[in-house]
């Protein structure tokens, strides 16, 4: 087994453990019922997503400062994995919202800013794909990533403020009983490990892709580019 495969196995194993905790250990919520169990993964996913986008931010900043290809690869990896986790967060959020609030969507600060987050980093991935690969793509993406990272809290803040002008459904957050808290922390830890492993794997893919671009076995000059594979 390669080391990436080993890490993957560990990450999956940990997620199974978290799953067991969620369904077997954590008590059923008194108010929300079994649907509430989504919360563990939903919030963990969100935190993992933010973690990934922090990687994109730092990778971008380091790239702008030092033109480090390694930093750029981490940024690319972080963006892909982050979009995946954001998608999971949004979908789980919607599945949770329907039984609890009666609607799949509501324009509150968290949902709105998570959606914006998704859009920004989907845009990031699109820009990478469309720009000339190499320095141009890396620089542009770094700037997009930095602005995206700043924008999300700004949007969150604006919508929170807007809600004071236009009150909407209130999300009640009770204090968590200790078993729930423990389950949550466990799930979060396992999810973060999963995110780290995914980023590592993606990093490796980006490294291989970079090598394919700049080092060719035979030197082929001014040929038509091969069709690119989906990331």
């Amino acid at each position: 087994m390669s080391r990436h495969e080993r890490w993957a196995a560990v990450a999956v194993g940990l997620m199974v453990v978290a799953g067991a905790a969620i369904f077997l250990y954590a008590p059923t919520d008194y108010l929300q019922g079994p649907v509430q169990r989504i919360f563990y993964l939903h919030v963990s996913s969100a935190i993992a997503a933010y973690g990934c986008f922090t990687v994109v931010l730092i990778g971008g900043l380091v790239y702008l400062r030092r033109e480090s290809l390694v930093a750029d690869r981490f940024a690319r990896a972080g963006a892909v994995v982050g979009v995946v986790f954001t998608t999971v967060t949004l979908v789980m959020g919607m599945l949770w919202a329907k039984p609890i609030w009666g609607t799949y969507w509501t324009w509150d600060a968290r949902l709105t800013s998570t959606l914006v987050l998704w859009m920004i980093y989907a845009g990031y991935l699109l820009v990478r794909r469309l720009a000339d690969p190499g320095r141009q793509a890396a620089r542009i993406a770094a700037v997009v990533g930095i602005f995206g990272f700043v924008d999300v809290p700004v949007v969150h803040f604006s919508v929170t403020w807007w809600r004071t002008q236009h009150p909407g459904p209130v999300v009640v957050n009770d204090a968590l009983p200790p078993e729930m808290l423990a389950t949550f922390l466990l799930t979060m830890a396992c999810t973060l490990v999963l995110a780290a492993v995914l980023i590592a794997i993606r990093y490796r893919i980006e490294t291989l892709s970079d090598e394919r671009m700049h080092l060719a076995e035979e030197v082929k000059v001014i040929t038509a580019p091969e069709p690119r594979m989906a990331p």
Partner: protein
Amino acid sequence: MSFVVANGLTHWFGRDLVLEGVDLVVDTGEHMAVLGDNGAGKTTLLRILATALRPTAGRLQIAGLDAFREKRRLRHHVGYLAHAPGLYPALSAVENLEFFCDLQEVSRTRVEEALDVVGMTSAAHRRADQLSRGMQQRLAIARAILHEPRLLVLDEPDASLGEDAAELLTRVTQGKTVIMATHDRALANRLCPRTLELRHGRSHGTATRLHVVT
């Protein structure tokens, strides 16, 4: 004294290798022509030499300075004529040049002088989009010499110019270090004692001809 020293210039556009390990040295005051077919990499090489493009690999020194680190400083000394004229169509020839004077903090008296050198004084107040292509080319050349650079990097300067192309270019390149790309070997012969052959992104050596005055 070497004014331009380039080492191993290599450039990839995505998966295309456009320039491969090009070396060149140009002494102060020397005129060098870069020859090669379309697609050989002339424009890419010239853009790198003019500091308009950063190559994927390689080193470049201009006037003893690292061209990548001192880009902004070097631009005072480099005049670049790109493949496309890059003019503002709605502005007159004079206004185009005045704008570039303002950008470079060059005295506006240079506008008249530059127009005179390229022989455009009569068309000075005509809108750029109403100039013939030959005139536009002259205007672009005027812009390249506006700040009296020591190094001129010219990409096919003779394009669209008429009969007096050689004369005009001789005037313009007088006393400067020049690297120019062209298809016209006779012109290259006349203006540049040294030539560099580029084929498929690779340098096929430089040659020095005896400067024959026709």
